[in-house]
């Protein structure tokens, strides 16, 4: 089983019927809430399956973020905690510099498409090596 934290409805649409994935859908217009939610899971011993900063789009550009986290709990994965904390600090800073603009629906669809493609690569890789 794996946990997929996302605020991207296209990602939910694509992976909702997948047996080995629990989806935590977040309602937020930027990626911080998804990052905080993932961080709280890492603090309890879950570990990252995909990197929080997928894609070269900066946190104040793409509103969407999907992160895959392990369902099983082992002891604290210190490197992953450090990684997500640094991503949160960077996202807070860049959103503070300039909040996410209001995009047209067409553009939002493009952002959702890229986020969906990147996380799907991670999910397929995880399924291939039947991550638990």
């Amino acid at each position: 089983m794996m946990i997929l934290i996302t605020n991207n409805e296209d990602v939910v649409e694509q992976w909702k019927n997948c047996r080995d994935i629990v989806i935590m859908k977040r309602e937020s217009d930027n990626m911080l809430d998804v990052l905080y939610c993932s961080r709280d899971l890492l603090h309890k011993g879950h570990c990252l399956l995909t990197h929080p900063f997928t894609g070269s789009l900066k946190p104040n550009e793409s509103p969407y973020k999907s992160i895959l986290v392990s369902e099983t709990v082992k002891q604290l994965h210190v490197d992953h905690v450090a990684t997500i904390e640094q991503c949160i600090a960077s996202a807070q800073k860049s959103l503070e510099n300039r909040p996410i603009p209001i995009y047209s629906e067409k553009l939002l669809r493009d952002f959702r498409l890229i986020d969906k493609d990147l996380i799907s690569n991670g999910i397929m890789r995880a399924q291939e090596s039947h991550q638990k």
Partner: protein
Amino acid sequence: MKKLKVVHYINNFFAGIGGEEKAGISPEERDGAVGPGMALAQALGEEAEIIATVVCGDSYFGENLASAEKDIVAIIRKHQPDLVFTGPAFNAGRYGVACGAVAKAVEEQLGIPAVTGMHEENPGVDMYRKDLYIIKTGHSAAGMKKTVTSMASLGLKRAQNQLVGPPEEEGYHVRGMRINYWAEKRASLRAVEMILKKVKGEAYQTEYPMPDFGRVEPMPPVLDFSKAKVAIVTSGGIVPTGNPDRIESSSATKYGIYDISGLDSMPADDYTSIHGGYDRTYALEDINRVVPLDVMRDLEREGIIGKLADYFISTTGTGTSVGSARAFAVDFSNKLLEDGVNAVILTST
């Protein structure tokens, strides 16, 4: 070119009023240059004149941060100077933090350029390096002449809107700002030259230093706990409900001291967690999971420890810049020493 007007901020010691016993004096004003201001005036030469000096005690400033800063800025505003100097504070921790706070307030509230000076180990450096020009100084006032000369030259450049050079030329502490420039050679060639030096063990200069922290010698052990007074400090953001001191949930700029005398356990309804860096539900359920008051009180009652301090000290750890965290500790360590605390247990989330 008309002479630039300068105001100089110093503490009780450098104003010759007195040492620790005079650290409580509130802000006051003197005409012209005082103490180190004399050497500074000489370094400024004909281009600028110190028209007034503001003096304030380090303890007064530390304990009345907001009001002291307001009063000092008011005095400086009255003079409408072109340039402000604070310190130099060398390695005096509380004086350094005061010099940084005043200089920052002057720049942000009055838009007047300000320059100060501190030794690298002064916590004021890490706290204010990103906001201010802080000239590197030696440990003590022995290096006064060289320090004020660098402060004067940097100050004059800033007051006359001249281009300020990089840290190594002007002698100020690296501010941690990444500024672009055009190098002689392209990056790939610099990389090849750097790997050759590193492989041969020759000296080279990295272009992006990784963040790191200095080391401190460990303290000798506490031998007899039955007489020791122990205090709890936490960066877990535990504060009384309603957060009276308005401590921020991250990048905290202050800390709180909260009374626990007479309490056997942390009362869940009187205390809360405001920390932005972790899932607070568990702490809210039982505050002792962050501040172990229940166990410490048992140890005190059983005589395993002499005394538990009547208060605990709290701030939020996440995002708090290294500088501020260090400055807090400088501040409250003085109080711990005054209250005879011999050991501290620090908990963090």
